[in-house]
């Protein structure tokens, strides 16, 4: 709704006479003004960063200059270490997240669809999802050691319980009339589940996959806290020990870029796979 409205503007808009005109609640502002503010904000941030670093106001130890970070990044690309760290992290995240999806989506759909399953699963899920993942690491080490499996388990636990609840919510909000109308069209219970309820959850499930992938990235450093020897989280921790601040920033930027890439990828997939979805 708001998207539609924001595109509709009076054809002839007067130039703003005061800043107050740009601060009316929910009212659109002219596109050039929007882009101008966007650009000004970005430039101000970069400018402040440049002045602080090149001007010698902040020690490179705390905040390296943009060029120092680019240099460090280029060096790490050249020697292959950045790719190694990135691929190690991506494989841990994707594996942990994929396991959570494979188990969590069916459980979530069953939980949202059948009250009996909800009663069965809810106590566990609601309890565990409030436990911080970091607090479970000692137990995980005790149970499965300190290898890659432990890191995957951290990502799994971090995303699984949230994912189940989100998917359950999606399934529970499939319009009841849609199921009822299917019965009146002659569908059996199994057909209603497989041919109506399941496809009806797809856009919501797709959104949930995208959101939980974002959360998986936020657990990365926690996962690589213990006895890692590669990965972006490890890169950041290890660079801190050697006071290589520029490398810390390279790690952060890489995480941000990869996260953004995954997000855009999911949005693209949503449009490609579910062209009928109202969200596509």
């Amino acid at each position, binding site marked *: 709704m708001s998207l539609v409205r924001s595109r509709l503007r009076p054809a002839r808009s007067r130039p703003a006479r005061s800043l107050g005109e740009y601060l009316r609640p929910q009212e659109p502002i002219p596109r050039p003004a929007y882009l101008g503010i966007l650009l000004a904000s970005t430039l101000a941030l970069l400018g402040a960063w440049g002045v602080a670093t090149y001007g010698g106001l902040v020690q490179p130890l705390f905040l390296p200059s943009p060029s120092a970070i680019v240099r460090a990044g280029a060096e790490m690309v050249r020697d292959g270490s950045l790719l190694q760290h990135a691929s190690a992290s991506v494989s841990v995240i994707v594996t942990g997240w994929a396991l959570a999806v494979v188990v969590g989506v069916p459980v979530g759909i069953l939980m949202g669809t059948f009250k009996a399953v909800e009663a069965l699963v809810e106590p566990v899920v609601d309890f565990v999802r409030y436990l911080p993942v970091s607090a479970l690491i000692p137990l995980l080490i005790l149970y499965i050691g300190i290898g890659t499996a432990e890191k995957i388990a951290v990502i799994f636990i971090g995303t699984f319980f949230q994912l189940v609840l989100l998917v359950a919510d999606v399934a529970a909000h499939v319009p009841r009339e849609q199921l*009822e109308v299917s019965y009146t069209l002659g569908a059996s219970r199994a057909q209603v589940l497989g041919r109506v309820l399941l496809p009806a959850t797809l856009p919501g499930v797709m959104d949930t996959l995208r959101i939980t992938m974002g959360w998986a990235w936020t657990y990365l450093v926690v996962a690589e806290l213990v006895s890692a020897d590669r990965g972006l989280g490890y890169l950041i921790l290890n660079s801190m020990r050697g006071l290589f601040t520029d490398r810390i920033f390279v790690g952060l930027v890489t995480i941000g870029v990869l996260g953004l890439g995954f997000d855009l990828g999911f949005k693209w997939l949503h449009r490609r796979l579910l062209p009928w979805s109202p969200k596509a």
Partner: protein
Amino acid sequence: MVAQGLSPSPPVPGSGVAAVKLSVRGVTVTFRGRRGQEVTALDRLSLDVAEREIVSIVGPSGCGKSTLLRLVAGLVRPTEGEIWLDGRRVTGPGADRGMVFQSYTLFPWLTVEGNVEFGPRIRGLPDAYCREVAQRYIQMVGLAGFERAYPKELSGGMMQRVAIARALANDPELLLMDEPFGALDAQTRAFMQELLLDLWQKTAKTILFVTHDIDEALFLGDRVYVMTARPGRIREELRLRLPRPRTWEVTTSEEFAAVKRRVLGIIREEAARAMGASAGGPR
């Protein structure tokens, strides 16, 4: 085709008139509220619908009109009483009773064609037949050329036309309509009412139509049942002696005005009674 949700046996009860299509006999529906209290939605309600008839049901808000329709659809079980269709007792939902809801219930992942042929397809009928049936009803509701469109590309009125085509594609014995035009604007609504009458002329279906729009009920119906406030009962049954095929002109006739005055009077009375009851007693 053998209808689902109908058990065979006993003879047509009641009136003995061969033309009775649907017979609702002494039906009571009691729900258990959130705090365990019992709420009676329908109270010993009876009505008959004849073959090829359009019967409208009106009543004050919350009188159980929708519950009555869902009961006939087999989506709700009666606490007491029975429902008979073509001499067979209704025990659950089935393809012989198509339903159109007020909310948009099209399947968004299917095209217009996919939606309309959903019923025949799910019953395992051959591809060629499904496509032919879909084509026929899409044309009948005036949506030829939109076969490949997804619901999100359609207007509200178009979506409801698809929903009607989808229900008709099963060739049901009875068409149940639960305020199907309630969410549409006035002009679209008027257009849809005439379209429905046109479809009725062509398909010779029996229609049970629930609405809170009295003009709509009278314009469409051969008979109108007026319900009481909750617990819902039939307060009055009115027959409309208006010619068929009808056009909007019938709404300006004396017969129309007289019946409308009568129905309005009852509904105002019932609505006032409902307000009084809810203001006085605990909810």
